[in-house]
């Protein structure tokens, strides 16, 4: 079967892994910000889905991918603003609202799709690609890894930016404090509510962008429930990453790669049920957790609303 492992195919595999991994990366990075700030953002699936919808609608009607991605981010942020208002501002239960948001936007986008697109199924053209000079010339790796839509590079750059931001900026300190000891942040004169609100909005934007990427680049169209649990994988990635953006990247790469692996194995004629292949990344992560059983540190204030001066 080696005959199949041609350059174009390997390239397509790499390319596919990146395309599949980027939404997870964006969702994971977004969720990480919320979690750092002490917000368990379970509604991220809903944010992705709505971002996918708004992103697609904008790209389809304006013909501009840039506007599409922007609209996707904004769509995600709109959903996030519900979470922000109810959970951060009013301190409602984050799990209830998060799940409600996910269920609600699953339903809403499906409804919208039904009335808008279900008879025409509009599809976008191929998304514009930026080939990185030099790097994209490398055989296989070049076109597989370095010839992608700008969002991909943005996502990877964000990993670096966030790493720097978490470690050496006030934003990083504020986020860390909001999740670890919000009262201390408040006492230092920084609004916990604002910090968390911004974190949640950023999460929404990133998740929405991930959704829009999925719709506009990943699929080229919108169909109901198309995120298929990517948001929940994002939550897991963020938690596993223990606050390190680089680990989100690695996790997203693992999941993206294993999806590509599925195709590779099949095309190579390896006869295993797809269910088994699908279990691989999860099994691998579990195995790693069991072997390197390290204390996982979630921010102590995760999921708890902050009320100034509250003694319970």
């Amino acid at each position, binding site marked *: 079967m080696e005959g199949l492992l041609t350059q174009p195919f390997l390239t397509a595999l790499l390319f596919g892994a990146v395309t599949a991994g980027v939404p997870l990366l964006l969702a994971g990075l977004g969720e990480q910000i919320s979690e750092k700030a002490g917000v*368990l953002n379970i509604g991220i699936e809903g944010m992705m889905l709505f971002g996918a919808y708004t992103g697609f609608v904008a790209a389809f009607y304006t013909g501009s991918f840039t506007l599409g991605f922007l609209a996707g981010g904004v769509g995600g942020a709109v959903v996030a603003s*519900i979470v922000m208002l*109810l959970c951060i501002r*009013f*301190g*409602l*239960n984050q*799990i*209830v*609202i998060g*799940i*409600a*948001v*996910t*269920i*609600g*936007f*699953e*339903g*809403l986008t*499906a*409804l919208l799709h*039904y*009335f808008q697109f279900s008879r025409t199924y509009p599809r976008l053209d191929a998304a514009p690609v930026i080939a990185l000079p030099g790097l994209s010339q490398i055989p296989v790796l070049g076109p597989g890894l370095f010839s992608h839509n700008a969002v991909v590079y943005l996502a990877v750059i964000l990993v670096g930016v966030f790493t720097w931001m978490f470690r050496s900026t006030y934003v990083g300190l504020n986020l860390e404090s909001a999740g670890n000891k919000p009262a201390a942040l408040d006492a230092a004169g920084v609004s916990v509510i604002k910090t968390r609100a911004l974190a949640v909005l950023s999460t929404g934007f990133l998740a929405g962008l991930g959704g829009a990427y999925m719709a506009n680049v990943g699929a080229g169209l919108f169909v*109901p429930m198309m995120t298929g649990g990517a948001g*929940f994988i994002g*939550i*897991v990635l963020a*938690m*596993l990453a223990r606050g390190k953006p680089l680990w989100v990247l690695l996790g997203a790469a693992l999941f993206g790669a294993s999806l590509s692996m599925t195709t590779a194995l099949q095309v190579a004629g390896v006869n295993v*049920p797809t*269910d*088994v292949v*699908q*279990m691989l990344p*999860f*099994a691998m*992560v*579990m195995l790693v*957790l*069991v072997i390197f*059983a*390290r*204390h*996982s540190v*979630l921010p102590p204030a*995760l*999921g*708890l*609303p902050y009320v100034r001066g509250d003694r319970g």
Partner: protein
Amino acid sequence: MSAEVETLPGPLPGGDRLKEIGAAAARVLIPVLLALIMGGIILLILGKDPLAYYGYVAKRGLLTWGGLQETFTRMAPLLLIASGLIVAFRAGIWNLGGDGQFLLGAVITSAVAPLLVGSLPDLIVLPFCMLLSIATGALWSVVPAILKARYGINEIITSMMMSFLGTSFANVLIKLFFWDPATTVPQTRTLPVDDRLPRLFGSTVHAGVLIALAVIILVHLMMTRTAFGLKLQVVGANPAAAVHAGLNVAWLTVATFAISAGLIGLAGSVEILGVFGTVRADWNPAYGLLVVPLVFLARFNGYGTIGFVFFFSALMIGGDSAARRVGVPQHFVLVLVALLLIFLAVVEYLDHLRRKKVR
């Protein structure tokens, strides 16, 4: 992360029973009204008649005997999952792996029950299968439980991972081991209707509903009136205090996980023994996603949960029917459910503020 809901042991201060009941009723009715209004607006935008829709929902979900039976039937798995979640959440353990536990429980029952019914009486087969599924669910929680108890690895991650794994594994089991040779579609053998859980008083409601009610009440009593329950709550509310008080936190964690996952496994079993009789590959009703918020809204109180589960079952049954009759896609029910959850949360929060003031 810890429970933000009040899990205060001991009776709530402040007394008047009637007033409390009134407040409780308002806590449900006001959000329902608000959600219906919002949903109605959406329906109007879609060009449908909200009154007709809601009329059908009420008629099918609550007001006709046929629909009411369906509502009761739907409650069984939801109540059992809720029981499992209450145990875990009150103990501060975020078992979010319910779907995997549920499916594996269902698959084991559907694999074993049809094989045994021929040779053993139903009175033995059915309880045996339930026990088997409880054990299966519990077994699937062992890894997260030990990782949490021994190494402090956050159980949200591990239980979600195990859930993803469990859903796939359930399919693998069906496709590789339990595939009914008589079907081309991958599904287990079917337990004949006559061998399923007995139906109550000639209705279509099966006895599993009674089991579920009994279980959730028992769980509630266990959590509120026994030493074991209080120990779990101490662990949940302040693990350091639990260590200080000499509680065996590791053991309690494993026990909690096992009970929780076991009950969710039982939910899978009862759903098969009562309703489906078989499990198809790739079937995943994802009940966990709905039950989790309900349990929170009820503040982990078993009785409150029964109320919410009843209400949401009625909404699901009635909503599906109404959507068909009015001609909106079924997805509208999801929107309605979400609106309800949000408004319930808002009103419950306002009530929480009120109570706090009173105290």
